[in-house]
């Protein structure tokens, strides 16, 4: 009985803490969106510079990782699936599996490993060192100066990385298809092109938006949680990375289910 009470208490507390962080993250997202929509802050040039900087760090610098990964995955995928799929169905499988499912998740994982951890560490470090207070004492809003560029930058960067991943993996796919079947580039692209529809682009864009917002908000929120000691930062960073991956996985499933239920 004692253990049952302990267990139920612990479960309840964990659930409440979990819900508390979900609502707090939603609150943070709401405040950042409000700033974005209203746009009534003064330092727009600083914010814009922050967005460009974030896209550079998250997208451009990640290219050297995402390009080889997508090339290898594309090659392996087409090589394996071509064994039991006909040419016309290969295109459909490629679009559904590679472009709509694997591409977004792999890009999200790369962003989580590279940028999400960096953002959490940076925010945690700034918070512990009272840099956020300095920004406020200058009359600037940290939510506009620090958070907004990260949300917009990471979301845009993820969408760009999706596009790069898809293009390069198709190129990798062509290499393997050419090696086993002597298919021409034109024929291969027609095959893929016929399988891609507007809803695929929509699904990928929705995933980019969802993943970008999830990754940036979770990282900012966990970064802001580090308050007193620098030793809190690695703990929050690890937690943020795991949560980002978990939430992205869940949202990936939700978006895929919604699209397939709609018959898209």
């Amino acid at each position, binding site marked *: 009985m004692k253990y049952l009470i302990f267990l139920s208490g612990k479960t309840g507390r964990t659930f409440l803490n979990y819900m508390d962080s979900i609502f707090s993250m939603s609150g943070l997202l709401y405040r950042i969106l409000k700033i974005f929509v209203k746009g009534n802050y*003064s330092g727009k*040039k*600083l914010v814009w510079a922050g967005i460009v900087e974030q896209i550079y760090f998250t997208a451009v610098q990640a290219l050297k990782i995402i390009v080889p990964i997508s090339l290898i995955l594309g090659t392996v995928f087409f090589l394996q699936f071509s064994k039991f799929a006909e040419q016309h169905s290969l295109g459909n499988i490629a679009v559904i599996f590679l472009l709509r499912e694997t591409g977004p998740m792999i890009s999200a994982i790369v962003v989580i490993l590279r940028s999400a951890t960096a953002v959490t560490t940076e925010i945690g470090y*700034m918070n512990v*060192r009272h840099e956020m207070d*300095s920004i406020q004492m200058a009359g*600037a*809003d940290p939510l506009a100066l620090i958070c907004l560029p990260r949300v917009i930058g990471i979301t845009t960067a993820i969408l760009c990385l999706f596009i790069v991943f898809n293009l390069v993996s198709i190129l990798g796919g062509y290499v393997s298809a050419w090696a086993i079947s002597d298919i021409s580039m034109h024929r291969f692209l027609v095959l893929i092109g016929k399988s891609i529809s507007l809803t695929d682009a929509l699904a990928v864009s929705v995933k980019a938006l969802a993943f970008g917002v999830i990754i940036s908000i979770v990282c900012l929120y966990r970064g802001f949680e580090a308050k007193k000691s620098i030793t809190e930062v690695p703990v929050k960073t690890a937690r943020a990375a795991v949560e980002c991956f978990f939430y992205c996985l869940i949202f990936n499933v939700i978006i895929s289910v919604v699209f397939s239920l709609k018959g898209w």
Partner: protein
Amino acid sequence: MEQSKTIMEFKNCNILDQNISLPEFSFLIEENDVVEIESLDDEKSSLFIRGLATLAPLRGEIMFKGSLYDPLDYENLLKLKRQIGYLGPLCSLLSNRSILENIFLFKMWEENLKKIKLDESFMNEFKQAGILEYIYKRPEKTTEEIKCGTYLVREFLKKPGIVFLERPYLFTRGKLSRFLCNNLKDSSQKKVPIVFFSNTGFVPATEVTHKIIVENDKIEKIKVE
């Protein structure tokens, strides 16, 4: 006799802290005031002056130059924070920006600038604070003295309506002592009130006019005769 103008007024204010409790307080700070904070407990004095300067975690009513500010109104409070000069151990610089950008962050934000045009008067300020050669460097590439010089230049270039000094001896190394004194004198001439807490017998450039005594059950401002 000329009536002094009220610069800042705290009404039924509370500073919330998990570890240290402070009583509710109400007082006003007028122009020309030089106020010293006194307490038997240095931690309480530190928390109190930080609460007044950074307005967090503060609850109550704050009037600044005739305008009412609610500590829960985040956006409005930023406008007030911009007008407050704070020098203390909690001062910090943004590590991903240069010394120059740190100094002029308020200006870059307010006037929507990407870069700052420097004129001779700024150069002179930097020279006096001993930071001229370091203005394009990141804070971590400089020394503690340069960082302190940067805090001083940053806070006084803001042209604050009130100056809070917590443990001023931190800002009196080498050349900085004279720089701080000159700026305090200058502020005093412009009738800008100064509120300070020091546990090392720091004497500001001008005479102390009032004291705020922080006790366990009350906080009150008294005139120094």
